[in-house]
């Protein structure tokens, strides 16, 4: 199938992502921030779709928007929000923040100035149907070892979380 109105959708999804990203850090109410974050994640999923990566988009929705964000909200609800709002905000790291922002800004400007040579002019055409299989081949054949190490790390993290939580039960 031929893509439709690519430019429009790209700018639309980018705008959604950026605006909701800004909303995440400006809202004082954590639930509003979380909801904005969900919108940002969905916008990102849309961008993945435009890159012919439906599997990554699907995983983005199911894991981040559907799974992790629910846990985020779960935790936020247990927090007493009125008290949390009175609490002093973490603004101590503003020097680090400025440095990071400046570095990122310089990078953006650089990419914008001489970006033409950095990226390939034509997008590599991958048949739509093979994206999922391609990921599977990479994960389970080419980079099997690294993948398994990552999963082991996650398992250790899970066990650690259970051990730490167990103390309170």
């Amino acid at each position, binding site marked *: 199938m031929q893509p439709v109105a690519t430019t429009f959708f790209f700018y639309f999804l980018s705008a959604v992502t950026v605006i909701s990203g800004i909303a995440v850090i400006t809202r004082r109410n954590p639930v509003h921030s979380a909801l904005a974050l969900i919108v940002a994640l969905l916008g990102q999923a849309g961008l993945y779709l435009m890159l012919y990566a439906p599997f990554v988009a699907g995983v983005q929705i199911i894991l981040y928007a559907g799974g992790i964000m629910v846990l985020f909200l779960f935790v936020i609800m*247990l*927090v*007493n929000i009125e*008290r*949390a709002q009175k*609490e002093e905000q973490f603004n101590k790291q503003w020097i680090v923040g400025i440095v990071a922002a400046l570095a990122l800004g310089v990078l953006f400007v650089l990419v914008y100035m001489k970006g033409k040579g950095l990226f390939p002019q034509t997008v590599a055409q991958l048949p739509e149907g093979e994206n999922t299989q391609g990921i599977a081949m990479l994960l389970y054949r080419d980079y099997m070892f690294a993948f398994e190490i990552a999963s082991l790390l996650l398992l250790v993290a899970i066990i650690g979380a259970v051990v730490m939580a167990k103390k309170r039960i």
Partner: protein
Amino acid sequence: MTERSSHLELEQADKTYLDSNELIINMGPQHPATHGVLRVILKLDGEKVLGTECVIGYLHRGVEKIAENRTYTMFNPYVDRMDYVAAVSNGLGYCEAVEKLLNVEAPSRAKYIRVILTELNRLASHMLWLGTHALDIGAITPLFYTFRDREEILKIFEKYCGARLTTHAFRIGGCQYETYDGFEEDVTKFLKFVTPKIDEYEQLLTTNRIWVERTRGVGVISAADCKALGVTGPVLRASGVKWDLRKAQPYAAYSDFDFEIPTGQSGDTYDRYLVRMQEMRQSLRIIEQAVGKIPDGPIMAKVPKVMKPPVGEVYHSIEAPKGELGYFIVSDGSTQPYRVRVRPPSFVNLQALDQMVRGQLVADVIAVIGTLDIVLGEVDR
């Protein structure tokens, strides 16, 4: 939150705000599962119950005070309005107490009629309990089955005395009405009809995995605690105490019948369920025997038109469907009682609620309120 101060104070926040997830929740008086207008203030840690406080009195009508301004006969219909699902038992307790005070005895035919109607009423009460209890735990179907069968009992009541719920079936000294033609046949037919129905209820619930999981080990109360709190009735028997006033201090004609007292062992909700199911079967047995050998004779003893009991006091208690229902009546020799004090089983049993639900989950509070089988009309009087 609660506008009324409660002894359940929230733990003061001494930790970070992440830990302050204790909350006080107000269950009732308008709540689908508190069986009327009971209000329970729950202190929760997540879903775990840390403590409860019952607020009662929303249905208080001052029944005991009303008694002081009515003659003995006039007060009789009021007692029907206390435990309105077991009105016949209430009437029986009151009439027998006054009879004791007057020192008269009802004729034996009247006693048999009383036993039949009271046991039918016990069945009706247990059926209503089963339906609502199952509904609270989430099984909606038993409610309609039990109400279908309870209807047959109410039809017999209606044919006998014209009322279905607040029957006012008995009078001091006997019964007002002779049994109607075909009363025995109706009751026998009902017995035949209802025996398989009780098996049907058991089929739906007794071996249902979810039902067993929801009730076994929930709301456990030991025999010693039951005695300490004055808990009576099926709740006491499910804890393993074989105490039934029908056997312990036989009243009416109960000494004539052969029946057993079902008891449980663990005192949990499942045992209370089983005990009540068995009690329904035992009631059927009693009714069957009573209908078989109902004697002929008068139905009213000789009582004066204007009752002036001698000065004195009397306490008489019967085994109501929910436990020991006692009447303490003080007479000053006039036509009106000086004081009437009712010992309602629901009120006393409700005391055990806090002990039974502490440390359990919110859903168990509902199950325990159901299993205590309280009627707020009787709790508040």
